[in-house]
């Protein structure tokens, strides 16, 4: 959670250490967080509402509800990552390992889909 208003949070903290800011002034900085929090509340409601719409039937395609539900969840996760975790202004040192894990996870999901589209029908064990 590095400070969105500074690139050196620790140094700024030390600078603040000698002064006492007025009560409530932190709320001015916190406005975006309230807005993101409100957006997350709203999108949670949207996720619940969308789950009761039969998109599979509407688009005549299997798994549409899951795809749409996951798309909304991914958007919410992006909001948390970008704003609450301040990833949108983080350094490459943090991004690089995260990108690795992202691609490994993607690989895991891909393996599941491959197994689904090309399932093992039988074994070569002599007893089977």
């Amino acid at each position, binding site marked *: 959670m590095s400070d969105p208003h500074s690139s050196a949070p620790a140094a700024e903290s030390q600078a603040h250490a000698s002064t006492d800011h007025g009560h409530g002034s932190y709320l001015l900085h916190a406005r975006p967080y309230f807005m993101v929090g409100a957006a997350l509340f709203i999108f949670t409601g949207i996720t619940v509402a969308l789950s009761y719409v039969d998109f599979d039937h509407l688009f005549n395609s299997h798994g549409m509800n899951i795809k749409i539900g*996951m798309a909304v*969840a991914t958007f919410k996760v992006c909001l948390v*990552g970008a704003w609450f975790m301040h990833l949108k202004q983080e350094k490459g040192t943090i991004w690089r390992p995260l990108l690795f894990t992202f691609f*490994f996870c993607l690989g895991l999901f891909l393996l599941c889909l491959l197994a689904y589209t090309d399932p093992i029908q039988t074994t070569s064990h002599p007893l089977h």
Partner: protein
Amino acid sequence: MEIPYTVRPRPDTGLANPKLGIWLFIASEVMLFGGLFAGYIFMRLGAEPWMWPHGWLNVPVGTFNTFVLIASSVTIILSWEALKMRNYKAYKVWLALTWICGLLFLAVKLSYEWPAKFNHFGAYIKKEAAEKYEPFLGNEGPDGRLFRGLAPRLFISGHLTHQHSGESKAEFKAREHKAWADLKDPSVKTIQIDALDEENGNNPKSPEHDRAHFIPRDTVHMHEPVILQKSDLIYGYGPFYPKLNTYLACYFMITGLHGLHVLGGCIVFIYFWLNIKGGSLLYHTNHPQLCNRIEVAGLFWHLVDLVWIFVFPIFYLL
């Protein structure tokens, strides 16, 4: 020995050590939960359509818990902002709200959601015996599930016992205890169910039961108890424990692990909140270090929130 770079950034990484450490930890956690979600998807895609349950979890309660966790994500960041701005009182209040939200989340899960599952009975009927239980399954006939192009329902669930009018709580508990004991007793060949879930007990052929409902519906108290032959059931029947089916195994595994993370986060926040050496007293002795501690714990807490954002739709809604 003094640990270097707990506050100031290291020249080579450009980050303070705790921050780099927590991000590497978060990366490993993403892999852990990513693996579990991948396993869940693998099993769900491979399951026969009628084996994968929908609408077993209480959506309003799950939604409430989601709101609680999102609110705690906001409060922890406000706590950190207040701390950086040297507003000690606000820091303490927001931090307290954060761990209260965390404990509230756990309380709902452990005192309501999980116990409700442990009191519920469920059984899968063998395909060859389905006809015997057709009045509770609603598959056959012109308005049955098969006619509507749906997978057959082969699952019966409800409560083994319910309290009769005029029956004392102690008598009911004794009867309930015996019913669960009979379930495990191999010499008892039948199972008696007093109350069925809506889709089994109240016109199972109704299209109303084709989709999950937002507000969970009551069980239907049967005039005559429903008798199941144990030999007609697939192994694993009993309370809604992980062994009943893959869905419940995944549900308890993933929400349990997530709950442990919530508990861990709460313990850390309470530690920082207390007026002890490594906690809030640092405000007076080493303010920047306390800021970093809250920042790092906050990042972990956002991960906990992030995981729940996926858990909620996957298990409760889809």
